[in-house]
């Protein structure tokens, strides 16, 4: 084989530094994992049942590239009811293979070689690499001095004339931080002033605990300058079905659809049929799961601070980003010790940006029994370190 078989661009992509740690976790038995980035609930039965029924009825074909019309219509109505957003099911909504595909599409759609995309850190792992694949330059905004939040100031500092877009993700994976309307308004002002497209990944929006989630495009004047992303994975516990959607101005959605039709064709029809059911009847299940996450959040937040981590209270999603600074250990060494000695897995903070070596991400998408046991083991680990 030609030894230059892998393209330079891909060759140069940083392999995730914590792959080795992940492999360590996967190779170990009887681990209590607080390292999982997806709900511990199974998809509610009526949604699974709708998928099964669609198969029985013979729905096994392609759908329109943009997604089943009835799904786009349901999404349109759902967003209207929830946030007062008006997106036309005809040409302003595209059903994608999870939000991940949508983010890839929008970046490939808007980025010309050398364009810059602002990416907050800590943040979800894919934004930077996908920007690079699209030929853009990710400009990372370190939010750690601002309570892990984007602010007009830290954004403005990173803007130059090549800045084309910004990734806004809230509630944030891995910190659980979210934004109030006032904070979003301030961010909007800066973005509009510099004509920067807001790529708003609101996949955890339904899991906001202390206040109502405010959707970015619902702010006055923001919609035309925003591509909104949401999906079924987190709120409906449907990660494996891979259904998300992008909503935005017709021109952008049309362009994204061009790429989507050549690369993906369409989202599997079974998943789309199940997603329709989710929007029609899943509200109660979402509320139930949200209540459960909220209770776990209170427990986890109180336990973390009790046993010697430092952590501010997450406002959404199902993560806490806790500092292990007091232990004096690098997060990777801490995570390894916790795994090897106590069989509890967490994700080292460096996964979400190289500078977060004092942090670990703790996921509370785990049963209360598991959380209790995990925290008693973590307390033992902390006591051992102090000794």
């Amino acid at each position, binding site marked *: 084989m030609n030894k230059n078989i892998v393209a330079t661009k891909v060759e140069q992509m940083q392999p995730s530094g914590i792959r080795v740690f992940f492999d360590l*976790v*996967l190779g170990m038995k009887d681990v209590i994992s607080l*390292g*999982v*980035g997806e709900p511990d609930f199974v998809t509610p039965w009526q949604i699974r049942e709708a998928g099964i029924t669609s198969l029985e009825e013979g729905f096994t074909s392609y759908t329109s590239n943009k997604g089943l019309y009835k799904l786009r219509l349901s999404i349109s109505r759902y967003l209207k009811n929830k946030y007062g957003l008006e997106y036309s099911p005809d040409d302003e909504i595209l059903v994608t293979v999870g939000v991940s595909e949508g983010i890839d599409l929008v970046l490939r759609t808007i980025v010309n070689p050398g364009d810059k995309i602002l990416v907050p850190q800590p943040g979800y792992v894919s934004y930077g690499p996908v920007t690079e694949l699209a030929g853009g330059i990710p400009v990372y905004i370190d939010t750690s001095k601002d309570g892990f939040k984007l602010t007009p100031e830290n954004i403005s500092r990173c803007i130059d004339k090549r800045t084309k877009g910004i990734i806004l993700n809230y509630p944030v994976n891995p910190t659980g931080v979210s934004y109030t309307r006032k904070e979003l308004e301030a961010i909007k002002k800066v973005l509009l002033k510099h004509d920067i497209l807001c790529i708003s990944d609101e996949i955890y929006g339904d899991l906001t605990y202390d206040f109502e989630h405010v959707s970015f495009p619902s702010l006055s004047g923001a919609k035309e300058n925003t591509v909104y992303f949401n999906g079924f994975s987190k709120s409906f516990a449907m990660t494996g079905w891979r259904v998300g959607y992008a909503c935005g101005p017709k021109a952008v959605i049309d362009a994204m659809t061009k790429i989507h039709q050549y690369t993906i064709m369409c989202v599997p029809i079974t998943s789309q049929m199940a997603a329709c059911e989710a929007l029609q009847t899943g509200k109660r299940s979402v509320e139930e799961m949200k209540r459960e996450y909220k*209770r776990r959040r*209170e*427990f986890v937040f109180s336990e973390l601070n009790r046993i010697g981590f430092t952590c501010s209270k997450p406002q959404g999603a199902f993560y806490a980003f806790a500092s292990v600074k007091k232990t004096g250990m690098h997060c990777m060494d801490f995570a390894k010790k916790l795994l090897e000695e106590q069989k509890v*897995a967490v*994700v080292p903070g460096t996964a979400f940006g190289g500078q977060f070596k004092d942090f670990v991400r703790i996921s509370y998408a785990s049963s209360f029994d598991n959380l209790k046991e995990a925290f008693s083991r973590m307390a033992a680990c902390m006591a051992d370190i102090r000794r």
Partner: protein
Amino acid sequence: MDEILEILEKDCRTTSEEIAKMLKKKPAEVKKAVSKYEKDGVILKYKAVINRELVRDSDNEVRALIEVNLIPQKDVGFDKIAERIYQFPEVSSCYLLSGTYDLLLIVRGKDIHTVSRFISEKLSPMENVRGVVTHFLLKKYKEDGVVLKQKEDDKRIAISY
């Protein structure tokens, strides 16, 4: 429903301290609420859900669902006669229903003879019982929201972003 009840209904072993943490209350506050629920009869009992099929050394147990037709009594309707029936220890559940019959009983006994004897000797001869139809239970799949199957392992990948 109060979240304290929701939590206890899911797992009654959850301590007041744990509930307090989950709901951001003081443990004393939770304890007080729980005592009041107990006193008012909202919380009646704390018990485990046992899958008897897996209990090898227990006496075999037979269950029957019995439809009972009653002659209602003046002034008290069905309540008095229902009480006379549900007091029997063999009766584990007793519901008054709308439809073609009046009471639905779930009756437990160590074998089919015990249950039959209860029906023929105790239940049927009661003066307000007009008739009974008995269904012996063959298999239980789900009871009070609990699927009677061992918990399955977590199917998720142990670590992910």
